[in-house]
């Protein structure tokens, strides 16, 4: 899975923002904290939830189950707005 073509990840200098193009039905903007921003960055290339968790373990000082839960939650939210291409 990866970020759909109809979404673009963009940094406003502080946060990673996920913005839809004109073709998407979703017309909002997703502003993310550090871990969600990291997950979005991972999703710019084709990947899996497991790969993202492995990458996060190297980056963040947090227990695996917390990171797994975060990844699951963020991916589910992104999927809900049509931002994920399987």
């Amino acid at each position, binding site marked *: 899975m990866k970020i759909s073509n109809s979404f673009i990840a*963009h940094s406003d200098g502080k946060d990673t923002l996920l*913005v839809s*193009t004109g*073709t998407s*039905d979703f017309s*909002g903007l997703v502003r993310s904290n550090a871990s969600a921003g990291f997950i979005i960055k991972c999703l710019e290339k084709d990947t899996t939830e497991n790969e993202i968790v492995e990458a996060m373990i190297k980056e963040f000082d947090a227990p695996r189950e917390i990171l797994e839960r975060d990844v699951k939650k963020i991916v589910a939210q992104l999927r809900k707005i049509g931002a994920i291409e399987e």
Partner: protein
Amino acid sequence: MFTNNYTFAGHVVEINSIFSEVHQYCAEYRSQKPPVFSVTTDQNDISYERERSYKEDIAEGRPHIEYSDSYLEELAVYRKIAEKAPDWDTLLFHGSVIAVDGQGFLFTAKSGTGKSTHTRLWREVFGERAVMVNDDKPLLTVADGSVIAHGTPYNGKHSLGCNISVPLKGLCILTRGADNSIVSISKQDAYPMLIQQVYRPSDPVQMHKTLLLVDKLAEFTSLYKLKCNMEKDAAITAFNGMKG
């Protein structure tokens, strides 16, 4: 097929249309110069606009109106220009721009908040010093450290605007309130609204350019948030807060 040339944000665009109405609509912007970009519409573009307007009416809870093909073609023409505009460092932005003493002030908010009502108050307060640039969908050129707001034929249901370009002094998010107050806001505070109100191209490359231009827009112009009622004092409060 109807063909003629028009100026949009300083760029001459050739419009080739099925119906003549778009040419009457854009007449004030006619140009004799050779075009740098050409727009041609067909029946598919009109069907696309019909579908979009249907979806938007539903999303905003408005009763659906069945628009004429010629009107939908006018929208299709502006969409094609808006898709191209990032190549000219230019954005289509949803808002009302008024100039006072030659400097532009842009008010933006979701439809129905009262942008047009607010700029009408400015005209009442400032009289001949105030000129409507565009009441609905101005083009903004963001380059060389400044923002220029351009009038365009697409200036809202009351056709308020004219064929001029002015430097933008400030960009203000308008909200309703019982009293009038204005504060400076940061780029971060303004960003969600800027992203909502800018035209989002369908092409990811143009969308990326749009985001870079929105960053510069936030950098090159002062950003404000206004709480306002519908009294003339609202215009005075906003002007005093933004004139610098």
